[in-house]
């Protein structure tokens, strides 16, 4: 009897997912945040050098065009913000090529929301409120932790993440059974931070608690703005529970020129790494030129959230048809 047609999650998980979606909608309805929907197929895509996208062909002869499956709904949502939507959220599918593993499926579900006028600390309060709602009745969490990247990095490694000392980083790697980091990371500070944080820091974060890490090093700023008091760090937050990365948020960059510069930089890195070519989202740059309101935005991976709520060890246990059965 073939079993490959069956879902990899129990039917109970379908109900849990529906319940979480309903709780999220209730939460934002009560806070007057508008639910929106944006295209999954776009003319361009994020330029993040660490993300690979899917493309597909739009055929309406004689017109033929490449369209990109969105790696996140971020750009379209920012265009809505610039057009005056006010605070918005959406529950959306996102697609990232090549990502498959215990915590990854190339097609996954994101909750993404933007709060006009919110600073990062205000956004963090809201994240904690939302998590409290979603976890209540499923799993008791200990009090929320808020810690800076620098503090937590130093606590678990003794290294300063903001000042790159190749010698210190190499000595740490040699002494902590990750000596391969020396050749793998070379003199790339950002890569060292990714390596050490994901191997040696992240597993300790948020033991049965929501742990929010803020103030990422400036070299890991992505679409966040630099902190106005300390240009070595960026107004970016990541949230973890039981060592699992659940989401990422920014006090959003609103400077069109700076955004344009980061796009060019990322596209150059993509070329250098021989990653698939993407095009700059000119609509986003125009939207920023027209004026993105001061806002903070957050994305939470809902499949991983469901893993935590149901105590599942793999993402396949919360998806009905992961990529190998899709």
């Amino acid at each position, binding site marked *: 009897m073939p079993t490959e047609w069956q879902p990899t999650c129990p039917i109970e998980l379908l109900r849990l997912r529906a319940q979480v979606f309903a709780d999220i909608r209730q939460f934002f309805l009560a806070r007057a945040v508008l639910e929106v929907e944006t295209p999954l197929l776009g003319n361009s895509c994020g330029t993040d050098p660490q993300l690979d996208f899917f493309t597909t062909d739009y055929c309406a002869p004689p017109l033929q065009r490449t369209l990109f499956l969105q790696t996140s709904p971020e750009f379209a949502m920012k265009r809505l913000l610039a057009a005056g939507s006010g605070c918005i959220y959406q529950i959306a599918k996102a697609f990232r090529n*090549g990502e498959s*593993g215990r915590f990854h499926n190339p097609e996954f579900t994101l909750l993404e929301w933007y709060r006009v006028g919110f600073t990062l600390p205000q956004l963090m309060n809201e994240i904690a409120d939302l998590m409290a709602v979603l976890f209540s009745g499923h799993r008791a969490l200990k009090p929320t932790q808020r810690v800076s990247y620098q503090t937590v990095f130093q606590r678990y490694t003794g290294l300063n993440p903001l000042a790159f000392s190749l010698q210190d980083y190499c000595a740490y790697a040699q002494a902590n059974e990750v000596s391969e*980091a020396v050749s*793998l990371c070379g003199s790339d500070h950002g890569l060292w*931070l990714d*390596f050490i*944080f*994901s191997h040696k820091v*992240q597993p300790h974060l948020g033991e049965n608690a929501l742990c929010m890490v803020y103030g990422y090093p400036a070299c*890991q700023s992505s679409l966040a703005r630099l902190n106005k008091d300390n240009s070595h760090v960026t107004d970016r937050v990541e949230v973890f529970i039981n060592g699992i990365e659940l989401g990422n948020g920014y006090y959003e960059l609103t400077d069109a020129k700076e955004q344009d510069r980061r796009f060019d930089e990322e596209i150059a890195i993509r070329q250098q790494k021989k990653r698939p070519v993407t095009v700059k989202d000119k609509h986003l740059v125009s939207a920023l030129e027209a004026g993105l309101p001061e806002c903070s935005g957050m994305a939470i991976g809902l499949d991983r959230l469901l893993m935590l709520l149901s105590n599942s060890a793999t993402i396949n246990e919360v998806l009905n048809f992961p990529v190998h059965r899709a």
Partner: protein
Amino acid sequence: MAIYSTNEFKAGLKVMLDNDPCAIIENEFVKPGKGQAFNRVKIRNLKTGRVIERTFKSGDSLEGADVVDVAMQYLYNDGEFRHFMVPDTFEQYQCEEKVIGETSKWLKDQDSCTVTLWNDAPLAVSPPNFVELAIVETDPGLRGDTSGGGGKPATLETGAVVRVPLFVQPGEIIKVDTRTGEYISRVKE
């Protein structure tokens, strides 16, 4: 030999790492949402048996290792080498003692075993899960004592020492589980 990318690393795959043949045990995809993707791989060095963890950048690759398990018959020990034969082809292999290691205490002439070959040279020898060997030395037991309690050491014809029940006598043949080194039963000839 084939080249394998981190995406193809799965349990059992044999690859070359630091010039030694290794077997992949576990492969975990690790990726910060906004960062570099890695594969954290648990891997066994087939020469030393040691298990280590090693991280690769996703998409990096390793050369495959030409490692195969072949069922062979143990022939004899010439004092320097032990000799094995593939029953189907009569092809013979000789092994140094250090390759055989702990397995030697279970090897009896003519018995079958598994020889792991790397580039057609023996890398390791594993005994069958169960062997039947004669006891050459043990305290004479009390006949009629069939209780399971206690036990005594017994030296087998291959040199292995196992604990056996008190009623088992020198000269008898017993069945032993080589994975645990435990006595299973007496074997009637």
